[in-house]
Structures are given as C-alpha cells and as structure tokens.
C-alpha cells in the first residue's frame, strides 16, 4: 500500500471511532436527556461505554420501543429496500448525469445544452421531499400512473415471480426518480465543465484533424480524460443519495432505513434513531473510503505525494 492509502485508512478508523463514540455520548450530554429512563445511569460512564462497544460488536443496538423489536432486526428488515433504492438511483444518475453532461458540453450554447442546463439546475433547487409530494399528486393521484406509497402491493398473490418484480419496480419508480432528479445536477455540471476543459485541449484538435468521427473522439479521447474528477464526485453523491433517502422514503412511505429515521423521530424512539444513524453514517463512510482508494489507484499524481 502507498503512504497516502495508509493515512486514509487511519483517518477513516479515527472517524468511525468518533462516530461510534458520539452515538454513545450524545444522549448522555443532553440536559434531562430523552434517554434518562433508558440508560443504565447507575453504572460508571466508562463501564457503560465499554458495554456499549461490546454490544455493538455483537450487533446489539438496543430495543426499539416503537417497533417493539430489537433495533438490529428492524434495520435488517428495512435494509434491502434502501439498498434497492440507493442502488437504482445511483446507477441511473451516473449514466444519465455523465451522458447529459457530455452531450451538453458537446453542444455547448445550442438549444440542447441550454435546455438541459435550465432543467437540471431547476431540479437541483427542489427539496427532494417537495418534488416527491408533487410526483405523488400528479403522477400518483391525477394520472394514476404509479403507486403512491410503499414498496410493494400487500396481500396480493402473484401467479408468477415476474409479477412480483414488476410490482416492486413499479413502486420503485417515483422514489428513485425523485432521488435521481434532485441530485443529478451536481454530476451533470461537473461532467460538462470537465468535458469543456478537455475539449479545448490540443489532442482533441489533432483527433479531429485525423478525421476521427465525433462520437469516437467523445468516447475515446474526451470522456476518458474527463472521468477522473467525476469518480470522486460519484462517492460524494452516493453519500447525498443515502442521506436523501431519509426524506424521500418518508414522503413515499417506502419502508427503508431512511423512513425509520423520521419514524423514530416522531415516535421518540431514540435507540432506533441511533441505530439508523449508525447504519447511514457508516454506509456513507464506506462509499467515500472506496472512492478514495480507487482515486489513489487511478491518479499517479496522488501516489507520489
């Protein structure tokens, strides 16, 4: 491993430690804390702390008062839906974001470019939950095209597994569209800028002079060189998307980890809130970590530092 990779690993370990500790100390720092009845405050803090850490290692996150089940089990039940939602949204926004950014740069100043810019920048100004509410009203109720809540139709027997998949995808469309549309502006703008920079380079002119087709130049010469800054950004946006699920899942009553956050807040179910927070925070950190490692690998300049 390279020096910078080791520094990264160490700093991530420190951050995870800080987050775990914050999760422990936060409820105890609050005056007349909401957990006063839940924490075993007769024991010394240090003992509580070591207990907390050992329990964490065993996957014991406490008892959810509102769901009346272990927090770990509640989270595990919700996890698949969030993974599905985040995964789908990420794939769509990476593909659509990079393509639209590249097209925009290629057609700079033309109608396509201006249209995309206006559309995607206005979309980025919508809070995800507000866009979600508009989708529910117009596409859910008025046009009746999509289900308005949940992740699948309950109490229906499908004759084929294909029907189940279709039903799940049908429910997934609006939440995924909301998440994608509200976060796509960032990657679109970066790709566009990055491409415009690259397109001004001499080797693009050379490629044109050689008589290569526009599509070939864009794919092999321009996009490839514009990718590096985009990769770090993808991690950043996966983080944004994961955070965004808190709001989007709430609006669509999509039964994932994000909805547990708002459920826990309104039910004052603090163990569940803390568990969901840990999941979300660690997921974002994991994504950032992977991106950092890829970046160290890809960019020779980082290695030498």
């Amino acid at each position, binding site marked *: 491993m390279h020096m910078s990779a080791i520094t990264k690993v160490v700093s991530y370990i420190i951050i995870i430690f800080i987050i775990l500790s914050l999760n422990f100390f936060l409820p105890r720092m609050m005056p007349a804390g909401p957990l006063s009845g839940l924490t075993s405050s007769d024991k010394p803090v240090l003992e509580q702390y070591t207990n907390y850490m050992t329990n964490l290692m065993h996957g014991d996150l406490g008892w959810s008062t509102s769901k009346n089940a272990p927090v770990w089990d509640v989270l595990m039940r919700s996890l698949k839906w969030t993974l599905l939602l985040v995964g789908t949204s990420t794939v769509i926004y990476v593909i659509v974001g990079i393509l639209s950014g590249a097209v925009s740069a290629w057609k700079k100043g033309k109608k396509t470019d201006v249209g995309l810019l206006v559309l995607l920048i206005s979309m980025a100004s919508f809070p995800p939950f507000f866009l979600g509410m508009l989708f*529910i009203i117009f596409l*859910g109720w008025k046009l009746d095209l999509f289900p308005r809540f949940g992740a699948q139709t309950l109490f229906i027997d499908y004759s084929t597994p294909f029907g189940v998949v279709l039903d799940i995808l049908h429910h997934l469309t609006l939440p995924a569209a909301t998440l994608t549309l509200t976060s796509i502006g960032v990657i679109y703008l970066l790709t566009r800028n990055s491409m415009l920079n690259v397109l001004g380079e001499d080797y693009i002119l050379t490629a044109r002079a050689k008589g290569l087709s526009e599509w070939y130049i864009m794919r092999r010469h321009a996009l490839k060189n514009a990718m590096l800054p985009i990769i770090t950004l993808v991690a950043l946006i996966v983080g944004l998307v994961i955070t965004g699920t*808190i709001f989007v899942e709430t609006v669509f009553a999509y039964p994932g980890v994000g909805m547990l956050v708002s459920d826990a807040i309104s039910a004052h179910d603090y163990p569940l809130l803390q568990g969901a927070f840990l999941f979300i925070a660690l997921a974002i950190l994991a994504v950032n970590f992977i991106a950092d490692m890829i970046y160290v690998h890809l960019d020779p300049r980082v290695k030498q530092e």
Partner: protein
Amino acid sequence: MIEDIIVFLKKYKSNKLGLVGLGILIFFVIAAIFAPYIAPYDPGHRYKSTEHPNSAHLLGTNHVGQDIVSELIYGTRVSLFITLFASIAAAFIGTFIGLIAGYFKRLDFFLMRIVDLFLTIPRLPLIIIIAAFMRPSIWNLIFVFALFEWSITARIIRSEVLTFKNRPYVDATRMFGAGDFHILGRHILPNVVPLVVVQLVLVSRYIILAESGLSFIGLGDPTAKSWGMMLHDAFEYPTIFISDIWMWWMLPAGLCIVFTILSLTFIGYALEELVNPRLRRVTTL
C-alpha cells in the same frame, strides 16, 4: 473600499441571471423584514380550520385555522433568519481557521486534519441526530449548522492565503516590522473576502435546503414555523393529496423554498464568475 464595491456592482449588473437571482432574494428579504406590516393576520391566531381561499384568507387556513398567507410571510422570516445566521457563523469560523492554517505553518497540519475530519464525517445525518436530541428551536438549528458547515470554507480560504502570504508586498510589510495579525487582518483578509462571499452564498443555499428537510421530518421549531415546517404540517394532514388543499397550502410553501434556492444558485454563479475569471470559460450559464 466603497469604490471597489461600486466597480463590483457595475460588473455584477452585466450578469442577467445574477440580477434575476438578486431580485428574487430581495423580494423575500423585504417580506421577512417587514413581515408584521405585510402579513394580514397574526400567524398564531386561529380562525376556522382548513378554509378554502376566500376574500378574507387569500390562501385559506391550515389544519388549526391559521391564515396561510401570514404563515408564509412569517415563515420567510424564520427560514431566512436561520439561513443567514448559520451561514454567517459558518463563514466566520471557516475564514478564521483558513487564515490561521494558511498563515501559521506550525498550526497548518493540525488544523487541516480537523478540517479533513469535518469534511469526511457524514454531516447531514450527524446534524439530524444532534438536532433530534436537542429541544427543537431556531437557535439550536443555527448552532448545529454553523458547527458543521464551516469546513469547506476553511479549506478554500487556506489555499488562497497560501498564495498570498509570500507575495513581495507581504514580505515588504513584514520587513517594516508589521506583526503577523496586522498582516493577516490588513493585507491578506481583504484579498480573500470575495471568496468568503461566494462561499457564504453557496453555504446558505445548502443550509436552506437542509433546514427545510430537518423541519419536514419534524425537527423544526413548532413555535416559529419555517417553510419546511409548513410542509411538515401539510404532509401530516390526512387528505392533503386527495383534496385541493395542497394547491394553496403545500405548493406555495414549497415554491418559496425552490425560488430562494434558485436565486441563491444564480447569485452564486454570478459571483463565482466575477471572483474567479478562470471559471468564466467553462461555467457560462
């Protein structure tokens, strides 16, 4: 200084999107400042609940009978107040840390590790959980946002300070016996102010978005309702989507947020172009 501002304004005037953005923002700022004079009713007073728009209540009333127009106008106040104070506090901390880290080599490494930490930590989830453990109030929201949104500013200011601190004029000032803080305050700070302003706009854009989200999931101050809080109330109302109520309750509050964010985006782009001419080539909107 005043001449600088005039020159700056003249340049800013040539940016159409920037002007549109500024216009929208000024509209909301006026609504916020003069809320008691503009609002037709006291936003806390209860009339008949869920009334449709009529001559007395232009946008009807909400679930507990509060006049929605007045709620919107006072909501502007709350939303902008939180955004303004939190982003100014964050800009202040960020600029201070950036100046110190960039100028004093010995503190640089230590401070930048802290900045890295704040940049890597998932900020919004952390803000949410801290806010959930505190009593919901405007000041607590301002506090958590200021606490977590200064790091990007610090990093940007630091790298800018690094380019200034070894310029000949700074060396000359040092030779004349000027102290470190004199140099920082009088000769370096004025040069980074434009960048601080750009950051201020970008951070406030983020904060108003995040604040509306926090209020929406129920972490807002119920005694001083922001736009996000109005959306929270509307969303909790059982028949919000099937009756027409959403049109005068949910839609105006949401659009206010959208337009504020849009205006800050426009202002941000206009300022960035002025401050950083290198960008002009690529980010022409």
